[in-house]
């Protein structure tokens, strides 16, 4: 079974813990990583890449010191090694300009507002994970219990 990661980035520890907690559902089949800054996340990405692990979903806060979430997601979007990684921006403080940038440059896959509904976050991540797994051609049957069935039905063509 391939190692598949879900990465969460937020500079506030409590928020980060809350996100990770809401994603507990995935823990037995997927690896959930928490980073407190964009730089920590980039380092982790290097490490995961060196181990040839998958980064399926990257969930990031926007307002963070030194490097913003949109900057981080843009960098990842332009990196060939992470083609296909699903990017989710989770923020309450993005201006319209930030949001436009996030959509145009970082090619966001989803946008959730703080404070978020745990159920909605879970469902969103489920769908993004399913998309990633089918698009990458990983064996969906191994992960099927945690995936979103309607998305699966829509994407399986052959």
């Amino acid at each position, binding site marked *: 079974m*391939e190692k598949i990661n879900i990465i969460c980035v937020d500079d506030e520890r409590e928020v980060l813990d809350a996100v990770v907690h809401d994603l507990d559902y995935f823990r037995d089949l997927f690896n959930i990583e928490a980073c407190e800054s964009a730089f920590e996340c980039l380092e982790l990405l290097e490490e995961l890449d*060196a181990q*040839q692990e998958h980064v399926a979903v990257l969930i990031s806060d926007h307002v963070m010191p030194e490097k913003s979430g949109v900057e981080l997601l843009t960098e990842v979007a332009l990196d060939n090694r992470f083609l296909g990684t699903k990017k989710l921006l989770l923020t309450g403080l993005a201006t319209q300009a930030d949001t436009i940038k996030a959509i145009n440059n970082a090619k966001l896959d989803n946008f959730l507002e703080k404070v978020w509904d745990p159920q909605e976050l879970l469902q969103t991540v489920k769908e993004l994970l399913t998309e990633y797994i089918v698009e*990458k*051609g990983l064996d969906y049957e191994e992960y099927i219990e945690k995936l979103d069935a309607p998305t699966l039905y829509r994407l399986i063509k052959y």
Partner: protein
Amino acid sequence: MKKIQLKYILPIVIPLFILLLPVTSFGIAQMTLVEQRIIAIFVMATLCWILEPIPIYATSVLIIVLELLLVSDKGLWFTQVASPDLGHLISYQMIMATFASPIIMLFLGGFFLAIAATKYRLDVNLARVLLKPFGRNPKFVMLGLMIITAIFSMFMSNTATTAMMLSILTPVIALFSKKDLGRVAFALSVPVAANIGGIGTPIGTPPNAVALKYLTAENSISFAGWMAFGVPFVVVMLFIAWLLLTTLFPATIKEINLNIKGRFLKTPKAITVYITFVVTILLWLMGGVHGMNAYVVAMIPVAVFSMFKIITKEDLKKISWDVLWLVSGGIALGVGLDKSGFAANAINAIPFADFHPLLLIVGASVLCLLMANFMSHTASANLLLPLVAALGASMHSLLPYGGEVVLILAVTFAASLGMSLPISTPPNALAYASGHVETKQMAKVGIALGIIGLLITYAMLYLLNKISFIG
């Protein structure tokens, strides 16, 4: 406008016309109906590959299907009516098996190696390490780039190699001043090296594989045997191309710095890839020791990479199935010409023996070079090789010059030397797309290299024959 319609009409009308002619009108004694149909299929293939009304791989599929319908033992009912003129029908399994002939398997193995190397970034990392000793002088950096491109394209597809090397080069070329001709040299060096490099091994480019099909029995050439003359040829040509490019387009910039990020992956899977890569190439080179021929060896990486999930179900999709099918069509054409007995028949009927053998070699290879400049190299090889192979086998006057091997190799090499236009090869198209090269510049370099290449090919074949390496 008329021209556009012609490209659709001609490939239909001319073969139909040939089909409907009476058998006796071809001027070949004892020609059978099956042979007549093969001629029609051959003409159809020629027209389709030259005019390209349909994708070139679709022409290959069409050849196979028409052979199944018209000259197989399970074809259409009216094609099998007993008649003294019918001739030999070909078994349908044999025609279908061209999709998995040993040559195709050889290429499949090559694709597996290339896909794994790219997936585990062996290619980029090797390029990074190998480029280091070439320093920063533009001239030598270019030499380094060309050598690495050529080596990679011996085992990977020329297109993939070019794409990778150009993506490394693009940021560097952007730093050149607008007027610096060095830009042109760099942008051209990659496709030129990739096109030339492909000649080095049997799996370097599809025409080589097609040629292997006709080099059988006492004429067969092993993987190592091919490299023994292919690699020196590539080295000489690369050197000439380098001199040509640096003289025509000298760089004014003093120093360039290629920046390739990354490090070698060290996961168990990555290490398996490295080992399999090396072992496969070693096994190819030492064919004499272990008894396996190149085709069987090619299946080893296929098994290893599938087993360890290095190439997954999804990665199978990255295989260029269209290229494999394109080659299959060529092989099917060869099988058709051969098994129907047409090849032997036609050669007997036409007095080729009256031609001077050297004239034939030069004529065939120049024709091939010309065709390869305007159409797919593989399609050129698909069309010309079965003809020259039959011709070579029957011409006794060719023997003092090395026999059919010489003729086949001259044509095969010529097929890879067609690179004077953006449409000649996918690497050329990619380089042209960079925007740094004008068509005129590409034509100048391409024509010069094509002609020089042919001359060197002749010299090489002459030498090989003298030392009795071939023929």
